[in-house]
């Protein structure tokens, strides 16, 4: 047996926008074990429920993540609405779907850029982020915010989108689709990229399932789990295909995200076609008394907001289980046996969001 050495990876590393630390146990160039450490930037803001009224906490929930902030806010609101048995107007449910899917587009395009950067394809990185700007422009135009939207509220949403703007948005989606098609063709068919990603960081379907993988990390191994299929919001009235791939390697996870871009634009089109007229919110009275595990599909996978109220304006508990937290054990499995040079690409392939994890 070769001599084992430990190489620290992170918390600061060029592929990591946020801090996570991995102790890589190496034999020559092979990784034989990995010990993860998180907690460098733990914010503890779940504790804030004790001093922010449940209506104000929406703003805190949104700030769990700087990428999928809208989905965090909407998931929190839907959890409270379930406890309080609030019937949200249909139009608001469709608007939540539209903004959620734009968040997914934003997140996946951001990730594709970062992923290209991780294997040294700078031009592709810039191309992905250029396309992402179209999505951010839409978010800004309809909500006023590029990253934090602030449109979720308990009982509905704060803003409406006019039918003229929705029509224009659907036309703009054709341009977006065209740009994304060019972009994803390179990601999925370029020889050098395929060579770099194929059979790297492989995890089997069984391991992905039993180790708790979620989102594209699970679907890239053939586990067809997508919480949108549970039908929360307006998803029960839309056709939501679950994108999977079977190889379980970095290319498979990239393939799933690339294909999901088009699923998202399709869902936005479906929602724009079916959205009814009507109010976008209802008046909320009283305070939540009860508990609920609200689950939703974030760009990185299954998100859980556990909420418990006692009939006062302050919740007893908000517990946020983010997809990155649950994707860490599968990441350890993927890294065991890989080459040291593949570690940055494999780590990025789960789309780690440490800010979510360190809520």
């Amino acid at each position, binding site marked *: 047996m070769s001599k084992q050495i430990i190489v620290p990876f992170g918390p600061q590393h060029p592929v990591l926008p946020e801090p996570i630390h991995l102790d890589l146990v190496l034999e020559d160039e092979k990784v034989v074990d990995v*010990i993860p*450490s*998180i*907690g*460098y930037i*733990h914010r*503890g803001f*779940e*504790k804030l429920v*004790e*001093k922010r009224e449940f209506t104000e906490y929406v703003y805190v929930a949104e700030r769990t993540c700087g990428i999928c902030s809208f989905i965090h806010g909407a998931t929190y609101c*839907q959890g409270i*609405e*379930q406890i309080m048995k609030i019937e*949200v107007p249909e139009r608001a*449910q469709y608007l939540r779907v539209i903004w959620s899917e734009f968040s997914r587009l934003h997140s996946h395009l951001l990730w594709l850029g970062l992923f290209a950067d991780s294997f040294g394809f700078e031009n592709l990185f810039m191309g992905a982020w250029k396309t992402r700007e179209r999505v951010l422009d839409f978010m800004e135009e309809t909500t006023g915010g590029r990253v934090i939207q602030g449109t979720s509220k308990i009982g509905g949403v704060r803003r409406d989108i006019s039918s003229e703007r929705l029509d224009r948005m659907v036309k703009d989606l054709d341009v977006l689709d065209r740009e994304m098609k060019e972009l994803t063709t390179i990601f999925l068919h370029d020889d050098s990229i395929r060579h770099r990603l194929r059979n790297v960081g492989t995890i089997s379907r069984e391991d992905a*399932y*039993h*180790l*708790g993988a979620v989102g594209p990390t699970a679907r890239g191994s053939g586990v067809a789990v997508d*919480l949108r*299929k*549970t*039908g*929360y*919001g*307006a998803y*029960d009235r839309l056709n939501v295909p679950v994108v999977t791939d079977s190889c379980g390697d970095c290319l498979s996870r990239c393939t799933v995200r690339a294909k999901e871009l088009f699923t998202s634009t399709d869902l936005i089109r479906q929602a724009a076609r079916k959205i009814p007229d009507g109010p976008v919110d209802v008046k909320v009275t009283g305070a939540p008394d009860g508990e*609920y*595990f609200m*689950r939703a599909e974030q760009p990185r996978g*299954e998100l*859980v907001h*556990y909420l*418990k109220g006692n009939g006062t304006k*302050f919740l*007893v*508990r908000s*517990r946020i*289980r983010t997809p990155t*937290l*649950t994707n*860490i*054990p*599968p990441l350890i499995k993927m890294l065991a046996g890989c080459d040291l040079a593949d570690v940055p690409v494999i780590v990025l392939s789960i789309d780690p969001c440490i800010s979510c994890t360190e809520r």
Partner: protein
Amino acid sequence: MTMQPQVTTNIEVGQLIGSVERFRNEGYRLVQIGCTKVGDLYEINYSFDKDYHFENIRITIGGSTEVPSISGMYWNSFIYENEMHDLFGIQVRGMNIDFKGTLFRTAVKYPFSQPPVTVTKGDKP
């Protein structure tokens, strides 16, 4: 909006391993383990899912009660078990990876086991 059916079953600490084993044998995946402080007690929820069927088991314990680890059945549980140790001070016996209190580096030890914050009028922003 479609309601997701949710079942929560209260069990004793001694029944935990047997109950988790049943979920494992039936092919459920572990969704999360979460802890909530209720008065002087702690509620620990173990959540499982299979084909979008979501189910919870719950134990309620005092702060000094030791909880057995389920990492023998669900290897990934170490991430949640270390979390509830570091944030709530829950003692977990037999974890496959024990960070011994260093997974979350918090300024206050066991921050979520501290008494709830009392809001007075002057605290409002």
